[in-house]
């Protein structure tokens, strides 16, 4: 028989010496109720299989690659529509759950888990994600998907795209699509009341093509389809000990990334200087990552809790280098090493403590210390890069960056009254960097908050936060490369004042109705920067309504308006007159939805969202510049479903998804593959479509 015990009140224990207070054990007294005699006659005992299977057809109204992203329905036509769930339960605690979504599509998802309650659980999941990496893409290259791209035999090279006379006759529709497939296998084994072992293995495969830009000095570039053949295997395992006053978990993560394509070579479509008929770029190298972590939490008393984590990782990358150049003139230049021997240690240490002190209504204090470190031990060597396969440049050392981030924070929360709580805190963060413009930055943040609990379920909150970042002397590192403008301050390494204000109002005039309003504004001022990012502002407000007058009806509506501004200054040289750019993104998103049970047999629901974005960029140098056309994106998305139960076992489901999307982008629109005289592109287009996907399914429940 399990004992049920009662944790007692300790308010008067302040008379006990402090030491006893800190280390007090849960004071428990066994109750004498024998719960095993509770018969639970009205309890439901499941023994066997039950489930909900949906099978039918779907129909996509249009060919649209963007509509097909993630959905897997990019072509007009009929699809299968299979999903559902299947379950097993028995009185001995054995269980099995299976969830299936979109089994007939490229976006299929299957998840299953089973085991015995309180003993073990096995998990298995499969997930596919289709995604296009560009729309309307074409290329004259042969060998798409491989690491060797060649041009047709009758290709006419030229110094610019307008002279490539066989270009248009050579173009072929070239979808830039990737398919990510993820397999998850997991086990949780509870081999005693206190010890639990868990292991999860994940295998990710991502295959397809993406656009890749290969430049030739300043004169030309080619955008071509590069292969994507990524494989990531990851183990995440942990052993946990759970006591009555503390918990510890020892964890290990091992992650192994492999790229099936080590490099990609492409035939130069431009008039080639000797040796540059073919060009080559390295693709992402395989790497390995291991991390050992220890996480724990302890309740030292009912008022003092400590938690922390220590994680030590090591990142390795040692793929063999490809030669300096595919250009025969430089392909045999000696490399300082055959592979990088890259190694980077990561350390993350977190210690958090929370002390709750009861003074009248309550005072709590939380302090946290955190260190995050990247110690790059990659060997430093002198390389002689061959610039875009054309000519050797000045020798340069590689720059294995390291950094160390230390953060200390303390928060105080005080419930002054039943209706009001004040909070405040401070945070200090130091970042030490190597091989960069600054060696140290220190950011100090103060924040305060007042939260009011008012009548009619109303909650009002104000929060202000202010931070100041000071950096050490800005000295551009001399790595043998080009030097930046002397007044350039990279925004992540510049002095900065940042302020943040937030107001939230939650209001429930009726039990079923809640209205939320939130506003926030964050502004950053890089007050000592003269070249670079000078200021940025981000503000947003949201109104949100939800109405749930019972379990049968649920409705919501929302409106969010975001505005993001930035002010950037740059110059072409130390003595040149700086120019200024102001950017503004305005995004308005509004939506509403309803789900309702019309009767015991029928239910209906819909969701509607409209999102409109406008991006303005104003660049002023001399003052007579033509403005950029606004960047625009308009999305209208709607879903509708209707479910009807014909009888105890059978029913039907109808659902429809509609999406209308239009975008205008001056960087892409109307360019085609030869719109930039010196760059052969893939003709990416900003997508415009209107499509819907309808599903009709029979539903069988058992």
């Amino acid at each position, binding site marked *: 028989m399990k004992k*049920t015990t*009662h*944790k007692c009140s300790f308010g008067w224990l302040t008379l006990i010496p402090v030491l*006893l207070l800190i280390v*007090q*054990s*849960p004071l*428990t007294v066994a*109750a004498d109720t024998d*719960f095993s005699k*509770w*018969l*639970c006659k*009205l*309890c439901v005992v499941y023994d066997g299989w039950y489930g909900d299977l949906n099978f039918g057809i779907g129909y996509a109204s249009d060919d649209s690659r963007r509509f097909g*992203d993630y*959905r897997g329905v990019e072509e007009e036509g009929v699809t299968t529509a299979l999903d559902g769930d299947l*379950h097993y*339960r028995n009185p001995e*605690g054995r269980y099995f759950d299976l969830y299936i979504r979109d089994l007939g599509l490229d976006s299929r*998802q299957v998840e299953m888990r089973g085991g015995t309650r309180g003993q073990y659980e096995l998990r298995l999941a499969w997930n596919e994600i289709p995604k296009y990496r560009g729309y309307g893409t074409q290329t004259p290259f042969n060998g798409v998907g491989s690491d060797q791209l060649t041009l047709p035999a009758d290709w006419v090279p030229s110094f610019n795209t307008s002279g490539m006379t066989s270009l248009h006759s050579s173009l072929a529709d070239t979808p830039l699509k990737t398919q990510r497939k993820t397999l998850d296998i997991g086990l949780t084994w509870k081999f005693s009341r*206190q010890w639990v072992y868990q292991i999860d293995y994940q295998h990710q495969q991502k295959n397809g093509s993406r656009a890749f830009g290969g430049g030739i000095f300043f004169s030309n570039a080619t*955008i071509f389809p590069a292969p994507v053949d990524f494989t990531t295997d990851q183990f995440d395992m*942990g052993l*946990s000990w759970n006591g009555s006053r503390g918990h510890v978990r020892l964890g290990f993560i091992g992650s192994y990334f492999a790229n099936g394509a080590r490099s990609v070579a492409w035939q130069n479509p431009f008039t080639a200087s000797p040796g540059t008929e073919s060009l080559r770029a*390295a693709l992402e190298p395989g790497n390995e990552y291991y991390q050992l972590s220890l*996480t724990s*939490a302890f309740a030292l008393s009912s008022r003092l809790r400590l938690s*922390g984590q220590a*994680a030590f990782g090591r990142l390795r990358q040692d*793929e063999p280098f490809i030669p300096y150049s595919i250009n025969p003139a430089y392909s045999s230049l000696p490399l300082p090493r055959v592979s*990088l021997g*890259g190694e980077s240690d990561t350390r993350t240490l977190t210690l*958090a403590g929370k002390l709750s002190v009861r003074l009248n209504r309550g005072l709590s204090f939380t302090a946290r210390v955190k260190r*995050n470190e990247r110690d790059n031990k*990659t060997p430093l060597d002198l*390389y002689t*890069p061959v610039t875009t396969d054309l000519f050797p*440049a000045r020798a340069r050392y*590689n*720059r294995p960056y390291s*950094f160390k981030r230390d953060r200390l924070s303390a928060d105080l929360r005080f419930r002054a009254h039943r209706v009001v709580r004040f909070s405040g805190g401070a945070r200090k963060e130091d970042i030490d960097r190597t091989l960069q413009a600054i060696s140290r930055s220190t950011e100090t943040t103060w924040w305060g908050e007042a939260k009011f609990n008012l009548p009619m379920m109303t909650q009002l909150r104000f929060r202000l936060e202010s931070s100041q970042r000071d950096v050490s002397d800005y000295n551009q590192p001399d790595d043998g490369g080009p030097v930046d*403008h002397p007044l*350039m301050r*990279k*925004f*992540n390494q510049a002095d900065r004042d940042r302020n943040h204000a937030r107001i939230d109002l939650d209001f429930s005039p009726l039990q079923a109705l809640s209205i939320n309003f939130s506003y926030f504004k964050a502004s950053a001022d890089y007050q000592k920067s003269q070249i670079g990012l000078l200021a940025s502002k981000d503000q947003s407000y*949201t109104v949100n309504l939800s109405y749930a007058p019972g379990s049968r009806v649920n409705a919501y509506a*929302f409106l969010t308006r975001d505005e993001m501004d930035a002010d950037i200054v*740059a110059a*072409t040289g130390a003595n040149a007159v700086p*120019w200024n750019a102001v*950017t503004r993104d305005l995004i308005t998103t509004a939506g509403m939805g309803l789900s309702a049970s019309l009767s015991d047999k029928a239910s209906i629901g819909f969701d509607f969202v409209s*999102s409109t*974005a406008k991006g303005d960029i104003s660049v002023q140098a001399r003052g007579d510049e*033509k403005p950029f056309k606004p960047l625009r994106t308009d999305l209208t998305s709607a879903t509708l479903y209707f479910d009807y139960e014909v009888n105890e076992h059978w029913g039907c489901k109808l659902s429809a998804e509609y999406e209308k999307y239009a*975008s205008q982008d001056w*960087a*892409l629109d109307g360019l085609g593959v030869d719109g930039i005289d*010196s760059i052969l592109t893939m003709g990416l287009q900003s997508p415009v479509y209107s499509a819907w996907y309808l599903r009709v399914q029979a539903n069988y429940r058992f």
Partner: protein
Amino acid sequence: MQVTHFKIRKTGSWSVSGALLLVFGLLAVSCAVADDFTRKGADACLKCHDEESEFPVLSLFKTPHASRVDPDSPFANAQCETCHGPGKGHERAQKKDRDDEPMRTFGLHAVTPAAEQNGICMDCHETYGRLGWFGSTHEEEDVACAGCHQIHAARDPVFDALAQQQTCFTCHPRTRAESYRSSGHPLRFGKMTCTDCHNAHDSNNDFLLQRATVNDTCYTCHAEKRGPFLWEHAPVAEDCTLCHNPHGSNHAALLKQRPPLLCQQCHSPSGHPGTAYTGNSVENSFQSRFLLGQSCTNCHSQVHGSNHPSGVTITR
């Protein structure tokens, strides 16, 4: 008010010395006694709280909480009263049509304070990813476990990809709007969940992330950007969010700013200086190569780092 709640005692209690226990035991005059429980346990509750009640509960019997086999399950102990507290007073009051003996209730708008609700849940669930719960943002904000989780549902909606985000968006409405931006992670398609990146129960990692750092979290799915590369791009190794907004952006690849301005914020090297590309540049055949198409990445395609011996300018 001192929070008092029942706790299922686990083996291996951290009892201090027997003498100390004896002292404390003698002082424990306020402890509840067996009389506080109903006489029949769940059978007493289910007489009223059935499928026809305002909050149907019978789906609970499909869940781990109703297992009578797992010794740590509520139903292997005091059944409903394990979580809701002893119900004898409530049962007695209801028989007399009185509402003055409420049970401990759970949820966003429940009368029972969130800290007390959560204490019950954490008695069993302060494990694995919840070790940093106390002191975490959600705990400090009085978010109740049952404000997000539906314990009585056959499948807690937060374990469904599409339903989970609606739960999170209740308090994070801007993130919902961000998920509809032109460039984003596939949250609204149910191909990703908030909890793929965030651990709502923790405080050990920044932004309640699943992994120790922002980059460690991103590398879970983008391991190809992990390096270390021969030629590194310093901000990439430091923090992905310096350039990307993971919740969505109006610019391609979740970028916070559109190239070339994104790059010009930090780069203005001699020989390739920070030129003002304006509306005039769109039709200027020399300047357009730096502005149109993929802008800087027309040439500098390896922005996350290059392992090519000649990739110092991340063009290879």
